């Protein structure tokens, strides 16, 4: 008797389980669910358009989608699916889809997929010329088929889109020559048609760390700057900045700080760069070097030639991670995550004197389950925290004025 009723209940449980499994992701997943909807997203990237529209691009259920909001995130348009099928999207901790929206409302996107079982990557791009209603067929950003990951996009004043990424193509020639190849290389390509097509990819710098996000911004028209985790002599993975002398002309690399993190590993933890209207570079990064450990901020007022003494961010006993810095008219804002053993909070600090002094850190959001990196996005009037969380969904939170 017990056995029979047990089996019936088991059958019912199985049927229910199957139905639920179609909607919910397994508990081990970083996603709340497996649909391509915003609620199920693990990575969400924001951008404001010139008309004040907020655009989001996200990865969820193996697909990339885009939607817009006219009321700063309270409601969203029906999403447009950019991908036509489920892809093996790059789910590395520092990977995320990228978006820029130009003055005409054109939307350029880029993201990475794993293209083989060895986890070699491929950067794909597309563009919408009809206000996000449809996107062009996805194309690889370079014909080279070795491995590319961690792309970044930035928009110049004249509408040029610059893409930069980490590329392992040169390991082939190194191997053939019997040379050891460490890390990856920084490659770039520019687009003069708003991200519809890109020029041939070019090398900017060889010997970068291979698994951390880049930071990319324009220092001045035609002068992009990129921050990346470099591999310095002796296998030291500290940060470097390169300011291009023209969109197609890489410049010298400058060391941000001498943290002395000698490690042969994937830190999975890349830097952040923003450049103020007066040309100040603000950078934030993570290191676990001999000289310093944790999150740090520094600024440069000479295009990255020299940087201020690094300032530590966050509480070391709360595992501060994922710093992001953004310069906006109301001030330069930094956010990062801290974890207290149960909850993750987003800490915020603001500087109104171009990075000279910073307000005391303040928790502006928290969640009790896994979460995306905290990002900042700004329109002309206001800076917002953009944060995807598994438990509480997507949030766009205005950064309040600090006393």
């Amino acid at each position: 008797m017990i056995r029979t009723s047990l089996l019936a209940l088991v059958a019912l449980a199985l049927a229910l389980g199957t139905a639920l499994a179609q909607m919910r992701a397994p508990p081990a997943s970083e996603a709340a669910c497996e649909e391509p909807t915003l609620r199920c997203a693990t990575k969400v990237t924001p951008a404001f358009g010139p008309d004040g529209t907020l655009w989001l691009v996200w990865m969820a259920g193996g697909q990339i989608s885009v939607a817009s909001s006219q009321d700063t995130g309270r409601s969203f348009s029906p999403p447009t699916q950019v991908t036509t099928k489920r892809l093996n999207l790059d789910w590395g901790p520092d990977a995320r889809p990228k978006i820029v929206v130009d003055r005409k409302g054109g939307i350029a996107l880029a993201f990475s997929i794993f293209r083989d079982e060895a986890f070699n990557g491929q950067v794909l791009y597309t563009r919408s010329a009809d206000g996000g209603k449809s996107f062009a067929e996805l194309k690889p950003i370079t014909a080279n088929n070795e491995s590319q990951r961690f792309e970044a996009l930035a928009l110049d004043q004249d509408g040029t889109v610059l893409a930069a990424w980490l590329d392992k193509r040169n390991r082939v020639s190194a191997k053939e020559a019997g040379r050891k190849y460490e890390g990856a290389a920084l490659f770039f390509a520019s687009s003069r048609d708003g991200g519809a097509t890109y020029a041939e990819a070019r090398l900017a710098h060889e010997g970068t760390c291979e698994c951390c996000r880049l930071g990319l911004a324009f220092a001045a028209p035609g002068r992009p700057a990129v921050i990346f985790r470099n591999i310095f002599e002796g296998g030291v993975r500290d940060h470097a900045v390169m300011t291009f002398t023209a969109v197609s002309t890489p410049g010298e690399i400058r060391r941000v700080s001498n943290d002395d993190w000698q490690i042969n590993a994937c830190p999975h933890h890349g830097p952040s760069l923003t450049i103020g209207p007066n040309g100040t570079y603000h950078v934030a990064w993570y290191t676990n070097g001999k000289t310093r450990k944790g999150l740090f901020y520094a600024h440069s007022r000479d295009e990255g030639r020299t940087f201020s003494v690094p300032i530590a961010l966050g509480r070391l006993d709360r595992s501060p991670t994922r710093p992001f810095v953004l310069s906006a008219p109301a001030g330069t804002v930094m956010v990062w995550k801290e974890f207290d053993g149960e909850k993750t909070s987003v800490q915020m600090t603001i500087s109104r004197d171009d990075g000279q002094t910073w307000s005391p850190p303040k928790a502006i959001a928290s969640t009790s389950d896994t979460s995306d990196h905290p990002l900042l996005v700004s329109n002309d009037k206001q800076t917002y925290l953009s944060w995807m969380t598994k438990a509480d969904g997507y949030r766009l939170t205005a950064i309040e004025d600090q006393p």
Partner: protein
Amino acid sequence: MRFRFAGIASLNVLIASAAAFGASPALKPFERGTWQGVIRGHAGRPVLVHFWGVTCGPCKVELPLLGQFAKDHPDIDVVTVSADLVPNLPAATQSMLDKAGLSSTENFIFNDGFVERLRFEIDPAWQGDIPRTMLISRDGTITTIEGSAEIADLEKWSAQQFSKH
């Protein structure tokens, strides 16, 4: 009734586990509390715990060397933990372990979406960089090697473990 529900619960756990790890039953799920279980389970013995991931370049180079070390040192308990952030690749994980000669060691794979919490339990200072090796002496002293370990250092540590007794 209690028996009945317990039975269903167990079955559901089994079904869930089979779905998640069907391709590689040898991989154990690493979840909240697993770390303390590993520590307790190997108490009094020298243990090498290796954190790695299938997408990590330096890990791919180190793993076969570790496989050889495990083979050469049967008196050291070798434990591996696949610590990639999205633990949805048990087949790739198992395949790399097999190729590295680590099929028969105690192998875990992260199985909790809240990886910050998992890492915090292991070491609050760990931000997720891999590879990472923790050497636990008989007396419980933990030595952490960030990045690829030098096999010579592992040999030295191993020798120390047995020279004390």
